[in-house]
Structures are given as structure tokens and as C-alpha cells.
């Protein structure tokens, strides 16, 4: 048996490098009818805010060539209901639960962090500084290195749990952002969140997304994610979690070679809900065919 486990920090060992991307997997309980969610090394939950949010009005999604645009607007059940309703499920989950947090302002982030720091079934945090779909907060945190640093630097004092910052690709230089994350002593960066995208109905002339500009994801963005990971890998030493357009096992290996220590599956859940099962099989076969005992040996090993 090959070893699929990876380490994102001393605090976070994953039995395999496959996580779910925030907002693309519900809270994990929608697919249990036909997928064993224990195949995931980790689940990253939908961005959580202090209070419940209904999210943006429709239309919220549109299909684009090889991808989609979304503007869900961080619809979520809020911290209290999350703690009440999800405990049982995540107690039984054999992988690691990473809670993705998105606040409107600094204090909202900190309050959630403090409360969840005490919750034993929460193993770590992914801080969403890069959602393009909320007007206040959201993207502005994620495009200016200093602004972001101010937001995230205090977080390290609030939790000893695994702390990861999710970066936006909508910047001139993602490496600069990644360096700030490392300076703030966070454990890892994840990238990429969605790209800016828009679509217009040529008959009604209305935007196909309520907020006009939404977030592009799916296979289409995979090359962009890889380019960003390659750039960030050169600039920082902390682990990178790769996200963006991953569809199959081949893609997962590509992200690891490019420098990601783990990956998140997002949009693929919508069009291939069995992806995790297929990827699992592929990773094992691939490692065997390459005479590798552990998947860790692939991380950052592209001949670049």
C-alpha cells in the first residue's frame, strides 16, 4: 500500500491530500448517499460568518466555457447554527475539518476564530480574504498586501490551530501576498479563490449574475491556479494548498508537482460527484507505476 498522507503543518496531518473547497460541498452531508466522505483527507466548510446570511439574490450561477461564475454571496447558516447542527456529522468524520471564515470586518473574523478555537472537532481555519462576491469586506482584504497583513497578523495570537489564508488570483503579484501570509506566521496559504468573471444575456441585456461580476471557477481556471502556485512556491516556505479546476487524478499530481502539499476539489463536485473516488484510485495506481511509496515525494518536484 502506498502512503497518501501529507502534512500541512505539525498540527495538521491529512490521510490524503484531497480536501473539499469551501462552498462546493455543502457541509458534506449532501453526497453521503453515494460517496463515502471519509475518502477526503479534509473538508473545508462553506464560508462561515457570525450571523446567518441568506446570500445574494438570483441569478447566482452561470455556466461558462469549461467553467462557471458564481455569486452566492457567502450564504451560510451562521456560527451558532453551525455549532449546533454540524457537531454530530463532524464528530463522525474521519478526516479533518477546516472551517472557512469570512467576515465583513476584522472583528467578525476574530470573534469567530476565538469561539471556534475552543471547539475540538474544528481542526483548523481557512481565512477567506478573497471572495469577490461580498461588497463590504471580501475582496478588498485580499488584494492589498498591507491591508491583508493587518487583518491576519492578529489571528496567530487567537488560535494555535492550523491557520491558512486563502488568496485571490485577482492581483498583479500573488507572491507578494503569499509572503505576507508567511510573515504573519500563518501555517499555510491556499490558492486560488475564483477569478473575476462576467456574462451578459444578449436578449435581455441583463448580467447573468446578480452582482454583474462574480467568481470564475472550474476546469477553465486550472492553468491560472498552477501558474500562481508556481510563483508563490518560489517566494515562500510554508505549505501551499492548491485549488482551481481540479477534475481528476492527473490534475492532483500536477498541482503537487507544481508545489502544492494538498489540494481542494471544488466545482468538479457539481459535474462529477464521484471524482474523489476516481482520484483516490488514480493516485494509488500512479504512485505504484512510478515506484513511489509516498505521495509526499511528489510535492514541488516539477522540473522547473
Amino acid at each position, binding site marked *: 500500500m502506498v502512503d497518501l498522507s501529507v502534512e500541512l503543518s505539525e498540527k495538521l496531518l491529512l490521510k490524503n491530500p484531497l480536501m473539499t473547497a469551501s462552498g462546493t460541498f455543502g457541509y458534506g452531508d449532501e453526497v453521503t448517499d*453515494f460517496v463515502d466522505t471519509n475518502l477526503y483527507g479534509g473538508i473545508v466548510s462553506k464560508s462561515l460568518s457570525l450571523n446567518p446570511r441568506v446570500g445574494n*439574490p438570483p*441569478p*447566482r*450561477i*452561470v455556466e461558462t466555457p469549461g467553467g*462557471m461564475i458564481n455569486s452566492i454571496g457567502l450564504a451560510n447558516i451562521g456560527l451558532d447554527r453551525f455549532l449546533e447542527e454540524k457537531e454530530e456529522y463532524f464528530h463522525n468524520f474521519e478526516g479533518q475539518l477546516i472551517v472557512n471564515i469570512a467576515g465583513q470586518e476584522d472583528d467578525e473574523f476574530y470573534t469567530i476564530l476565538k469561539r471556534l478555537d475552543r471547539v475540538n472537532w474544528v481542526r483548523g481555519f481557512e481565512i477567506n480574504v478573497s471572495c469577490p462576491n461580498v461588497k463590504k469586506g471580501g475582496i478588498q482584504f485580499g488584494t492589498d498586501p498591507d491591508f491583508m497583513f493587518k487583518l491576519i497578523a492578529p489571528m496567530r495570537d487567537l488560535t494555535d490551530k492550523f491557520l491558512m489564508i486563502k488568496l485571490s488570483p485577482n492581483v498583479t503579484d500573488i507572491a507578494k501576498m503569499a509572503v505576507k501570509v508567511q510573515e504573519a506566521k500563518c501555517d499555510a496559504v491556499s490558492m486560488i479563490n475564483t477569478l473575476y468573471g462576467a456574462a451578459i444575456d444578449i436578449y435581455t441585456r441583463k448580467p447573468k449574475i446578480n452582482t454583474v461580476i462574480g467568481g470564475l471557477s472550474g476546469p477553465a481556471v486550472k492553468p491560472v491556479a498552477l501558474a500562481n502556485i508556481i510563483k508563490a512556491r518560489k517566494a515562500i516556505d510554508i505549505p501551499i494548498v492548491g485549488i482551481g479546476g481540479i477534475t481528476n487524478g492527473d490534475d492532483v499530481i500536477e498541482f503537487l508537482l507544481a508545489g502544492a502539499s494538498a489540494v481542494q476539489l471544488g466545482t468538479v463536485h*457539481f459535474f*462529477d*460527484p464521484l471524482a474523489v473516488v476516481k482520484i483516490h484510485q488514480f493516485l494509488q495506481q500512479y504512485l505504484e507505476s512510478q515506484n513511489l511509496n509516498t505521495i509526499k515525494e511528489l510535492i514541488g518536484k516539477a522540473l522547473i
Partner: protein
Amino acid sequence: MKKLCQSKILKNEQLADQYWKLVFDCPEIANEALPGQFIEVYFDHSLKIFPRPFSIAKVEHDALELIYKVIGSQTEIMASWKPGETVQILGPLGNFFVISDDTKTHILVGGGVGLAPMVFMSEVLKEKNFLFFCGGRNGREYFPEVHDPVRRIISTDDGSVGFHGNVVQCLEKEIAAIETPVVIYACGPEKMCEALKYFGEKHNIPVQISMETIMACGMGLCQGCALKTYDENGNDKISLVCKDGPIFKGEEINFG
């Protein structure tokens, strides 16, 4: 329980102009499906990445039937599928029409591709008293067979077949003669559904409407299929068509 199946195509045949019937061998879904529910159909190697939702139009033993209209690339691809090929489908998804024993007359209203779930309803209600109002633009549209032809009332916008006018106008004409209590079940173009909501309010008839929005996942993962609705107190709400629907009570829907 939702099932994700690799299902064999038993039949794929053209019904009319752009309308096709696709039959899968899929006991897992067929044996659980209720009228109003839908399935997601998946496509390989496709530039458009979303699966496509289709109402279940009939189940017969292990066979699961869809009625679909070719209107874009994916339905075009579907029309090229041959019996014997295998396709991935997920279902049954969503809620279903609620049928109550108190109802004296079940009124099915279907327009265009909205006919599919109503065909299923007409099968389930076979032994009961139902009327099936089918609307179309003209006589070249597809109007499904029903066991008892008098139960099918056709209307066309151009009057080429049946009643001259839309399906709601036709219903307005007939309603006085229909035995109460009545329930209306509807699926079709948004304009039709909206008119039926107000028709129901006017005549004090409960209306169950199957709604459509763009779906990415069809099963509650993406929160994309949002629909503006009202809660019991009439407050604004957002519902997910794939999970909370596709069937909503007329009074729940905010047509905006």
C-alpha cells in the same frame, strides 16, 4: 435516497419536431421516483460543464423515461445518443407533487417541456379524476397521449389545435364546470406559472408549481439554484429549487 447510476439507454426516439423521449434502464431511480422529481444527466468531455436537470416523465418497472426538447448543445448531444450506450444519471432529486385524497379534480397544467412531469402525474392519477391542460405555441408541439382522450384539453397560441389562446385562458373558461375541491399542478414557462399562481389566488384553488432555475449540482451543494420565495409570514426568503423544490406552493413563490 439519491442514486448515482451508470444507466443503459433503452430507447431514444423523436416524438415531434424538437421533442424526444429517452428511456433508461435504471431500477435504482425508477423504483423510488415520484412525480415532480427530476434527475441530473451528466456529459463527458464537454465544454459546458453542468449536468442537465430533467423531470421524470414516467417510470415503468425498471425503466425511467424523460421527455426532452432539443434547445441547445447538451440536448443536441442527447439526441445523438443510441440505445445500448451508458449515461451517468443522478436521482431522484427534489420534492414532488403532493396528492391528497380529498381532491375531487386534479388539474394538471403543462406547457412545452413542462409537460414531462405532468405525464408522470397523469399516470399516477390514472384511477382518479384528472384533467390535463396542455399548452403549446402551435400544433407542431408535442402533446402527450393520455389513457382517456377526453381528459386532455389542448390549447395553442395560434389556435391551430384545440382552444385558441393560452392554457390559463383555457382553464379560466373551463373552471366553473369542474368539480371541487380542485388542486392545480403546474409546470411550464415562467409566465404561465405566474399566471396560474394568481389564477389560484383568484379562485381560491391551491396551486403546486414546478419551478426552474439554472442548476450546477442539482443536490444542494452549490446554493446556485436560488429562487426568491416568501416564508409562512410572507417575508422574503431564498429557496433552493433543487432541494426545497422544484415544487412550490403558488403563494410561496415571489415572481418579482
